[in-house]
């Protein structure tokens, strides 16, 4: 078996064994707890995902049914998918689909209430920070159904040749206030389906859904795969009985996680996807850099400070956590040193300063860990603070944070955390468990420290995430990245800061361009203080109409940048206004904007322009055209490859003779020559 560095084993064991078994809340229809309101039903839930050209488009269509005698309002909530740009929300009114428009959040809410009071059909999609998307639909008429659909777009990252898509459903259970107010109805009564169509010019050798073995995975060609899961109530002909209570065909309580693995040995590459309607117009681009595998492995001993969340929400996972830490620490390299800090209301260290990872120290640490019990709140700041102040400035150090929640005690403002991390030169590696952790905070902290944050679903494949973490931590990183494009005018690049690139990570950059023609791309950075440069040339097309969704992806990334600025500078009306402007202009649901659906004539009466409807129509046409045209190869550095090495991968191995073997080969050669002379 391929040996894995001990420190990695400890990290992996640590965060995988924290994948808990306690029941969590799920996506579903919400009813106020203790109210007399009758519950609606989710009759149908259909998910259609298309992954191609570097992004995923997820369309969720649902039918809510009202079996009661009075009209009701449906409120459906689901976890915010990672980096999801919600740009399409449709409500079937009088049997016809009506697409929503994005407005400033308060304005949308007021119009929704106004329409609801007037008894007219209306629907509203809102974002509740990083936690949930909430959809309200009114009315669900007595004894009738309503149909809605929601579409969101996400960039798809490939990490160490493994791609991952998550359809999040499981609620993390950390927002206790919300959970105590609402009762969730997560059963689909009549029909559930999940269909995923994957198309890539890079060959894929495996595709799997580890938590959903019932899924039908079909390989159409090396780069084209389909996944389907269907469950339906049997029809009368198939033996269904009548007059019985409906039985759930599916429960929306478990994330659907899909993995695919690229064939090993594919080249590092630069891919470009563009959208530009006319030659004279501004174009939008998505540039995806998949580096070659040229980062050196780290072999020197390092210090590791584990900061572990033992707040109440970790209940049920703690025994697994202990087992994982035990297994991991037992395999640490004696050159590595560790200390363990736990936090709930207050932080405390259970080790006695840094200890070498010898068996005796490990056993003592485990015994100390076992004497704890998860409870109380989450004072994340205090835990991190203690971790940072326990570092040894003379040693290469890293902070490993494992948490599933939100900071709710002590300092809780993002700015405080960022200030704390900026004080010290340490890398923070965060393992963000579940869908409800404060991902924006944890990701920002990782970015400030040039570390990384890995999101872990409860349905994640342990082996897959293990490989991902292993690969990043065992190798050096490309730091202080600077990316330049010359030859064609470009602007509005996002992200504004690139931070560090770890082994296997892709760099995805969005931006605008003017004109067309050959451009040169240069990526500079430092690896262990040594300057490194990669460059290539490629063409920006004059016209490209196949990917209008790129505009929304650019807008989403831009909003993330603006949000980061808000985190640094505090509340700023100009930045908030900029976010609202970009979101409305590009039809995106954000913390500042919501999407509302009204009867078609009401849009006119209220003077609301149908900008998003036009955009949606354009996107739908482009999707049809893409399906007809087949799989495209978006690689643009063929003529001058940017990377000399193949991209990083897993599950492969090789071995080479090296300079040390010269110490064997040279004397052997000398002895051979001497023996040859004797023969003569």
């Amino acid at each position, binding site marked *: 078996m391929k040996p894995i560095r001990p420190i990695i084993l400890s990290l992996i064991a640590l965060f995988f064994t924290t994948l808990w078994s306690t029941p969590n809340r799920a996506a579903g229809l919400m009813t106020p707890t203790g109210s007399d309101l009758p519950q609606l039903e989710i009759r149908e839930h259909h998910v259609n995902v298309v992954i191609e050209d570097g992004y995923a488009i997820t369309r969720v269509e649902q039918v809510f049914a009202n079996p009661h005698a009075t009209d009701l309002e449906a409120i459906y909530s689901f976890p915010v998918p990672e980096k999801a740009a919600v740009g399409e929300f449709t409500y079937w009114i009088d049997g016809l689909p009506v697409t929503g428009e994005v407005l400033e959040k308060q304005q949308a809410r007021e119009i929704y209430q106004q329409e609801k009071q007037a008894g007219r059909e209306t629907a509203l999609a809102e974002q509740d920070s990083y936690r949930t998307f909430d959809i309200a639909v009114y009315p669900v008429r007595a004894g009738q159904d309503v149909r809605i659909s929601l579409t969101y777009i996400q960039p798809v990252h490939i990490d160490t040749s493994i791609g991952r898509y998550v359809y999040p459903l499981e609620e993390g259970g950390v927002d206790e206030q919300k959970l105590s107010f609402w009762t969730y109805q997560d059963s689909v009564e009549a029909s559930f389906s999940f269909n995923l169509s994957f198309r890539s010019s890079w060959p894929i050798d495996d595709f799997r859904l580890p938590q959903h073995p019932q899924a039908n995975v079909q390989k159409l060609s090396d780069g084209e795969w389909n996944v389907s899961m269907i469950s339906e109530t049997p029809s009368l002909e198939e033996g269904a009985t009548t007059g019985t209570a409906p039985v759930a065909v599916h429960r929306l309580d478990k994330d659907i996680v899909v993995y695919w693995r690229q064939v090993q040995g594919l080249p590092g590459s630069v891919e470009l996807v563009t959208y530009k309607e006319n030659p004279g117009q501004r174009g939008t681009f998505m540039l995806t850099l998949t580096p070659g595998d040229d980062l*050196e492995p780290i072999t020197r001993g390092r210090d590791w400070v584990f900061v572990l969340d033992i707040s109440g929400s970790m209940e049920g996972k703690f025994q697994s956590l202990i087992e994982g830490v035990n297994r991991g620490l037992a395999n640490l390299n004696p050159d590595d040193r560790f200390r363990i800090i736990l936090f709930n209301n207050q932080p405390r260290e259970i080790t006695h300063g840094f200890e070498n990872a010898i068996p005796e120290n490990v056993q003592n640490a485990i015994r100390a860990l076992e004497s704890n019990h998860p409870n109380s709140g989450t004072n994340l700041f205090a835990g991190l603070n203690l971790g940072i102040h326990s570092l040894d400035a003379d040693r290469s150090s890293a902070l490993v944070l494992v948490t599933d929640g939100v900071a709710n005690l002590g300092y809780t403002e993002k700015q405080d955390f960022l200030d704390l991390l900026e004080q010290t030169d340490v890398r923070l590696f965060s393992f963000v468990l579940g869908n409800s952790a404060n991902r924006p905070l944890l990701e920002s902290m990782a970015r400030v420290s040039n570390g990384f944050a890995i999101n872990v679903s409860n349905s994640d494949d342990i082996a897959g995430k293990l490989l991902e973490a292993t690969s990043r931590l065992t190798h050096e990183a490309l730091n202080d990245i600077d990316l330049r494009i010359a030859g064609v005018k470009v602007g509005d690049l996002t992200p504004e800061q690139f931070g560090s690139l770890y082994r296997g990570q892709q760099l995805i950059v969005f931006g605008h361009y003017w004109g067309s023609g050959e451009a040169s791309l240069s990526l500079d950075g430092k690896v262990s203080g040594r300057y490194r440069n990669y460059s290539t040339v490629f063409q920006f097309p004059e016209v490209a109409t196949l990917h209008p969704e790129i505009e929304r992806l650019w807008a989403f990334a831009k909003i993330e940048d603006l949000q980061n600025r808000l985190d640094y500078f505090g509340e700023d009306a100009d930045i908030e206004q900029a976010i609202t402007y970009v979101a409305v202009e590009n039809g995106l649901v954000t913390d500042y904007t919501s999407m509302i659906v009204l009867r078609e004539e009401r849009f006119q009466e209220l003077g609301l322009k149908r900008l998003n409807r036009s955009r949606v129509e354009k996107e739908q046409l482009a999707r049809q055209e893409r399906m007809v045209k087949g799989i495209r190869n978006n690689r643009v550095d063929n003529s001058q490859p940017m990377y000399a090495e193949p991209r*990083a991968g897993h599950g492969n191995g090789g071995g080479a*003779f090296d300079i040390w073997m010269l110490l*064997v*080969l040279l004397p052997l050669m000398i002895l*051979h020559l001497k023996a040859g002379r004797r023969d003569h």
Partner: protein
Amino acid sequence: MTKQRIPILTIGLVTALIGLHWLVADKTQLYFSAKDIWEGEIWRIVSGHFIHADLQHLLWNCLGLAVLGSLLEYRSRQLLLAASGTGIVFVSALLLTPFSQLDYYCGLSGVLNTLLLVALWLQWKLTRSWWIFILACGSIAKVLFEVSQGISIVTHISWPPYAWSHVAGLLGGLFIIWIQSRGFQDKHSCRNLKLT
């Protein structure tokens, strides 16, 4: 004294390594892959050892093959063939077991360890020099270190190191030595090696 002064087979093998690296556009069809081999792509059993992940991987292994191949071929071309074949069998057998857990493997270093051990044994038989014993211990210690640490000591190739293939290669070398020691070698090699 043997007349095999020009190591034609070694030159041919080195040329094949270089040619495969530069001429084959889609190396994915040649990597050693247990899954694909079980599904009928049996050429991968051999081709996987002759294809390399990158230039550094190729160059070091070419150097190793050039030196070790020449040493063995100088004494016996058949022995070089037998050692190479045995190395391929031993390393492939390991990669085909669930123990390896590798999806893909490439490179000649596993087989080179077979050649190395056989070459050391030959020199020991011929010279009885304690240097050979020291070199053998050093080589085995290096492989054991790599296995325990999961790293290559110096070389960094774009694929993760898989030191167990070196262990399998060394076992292949021990097998050849055992066969030779029991007198199963063919007459030609016996004559050349002056072992009997």
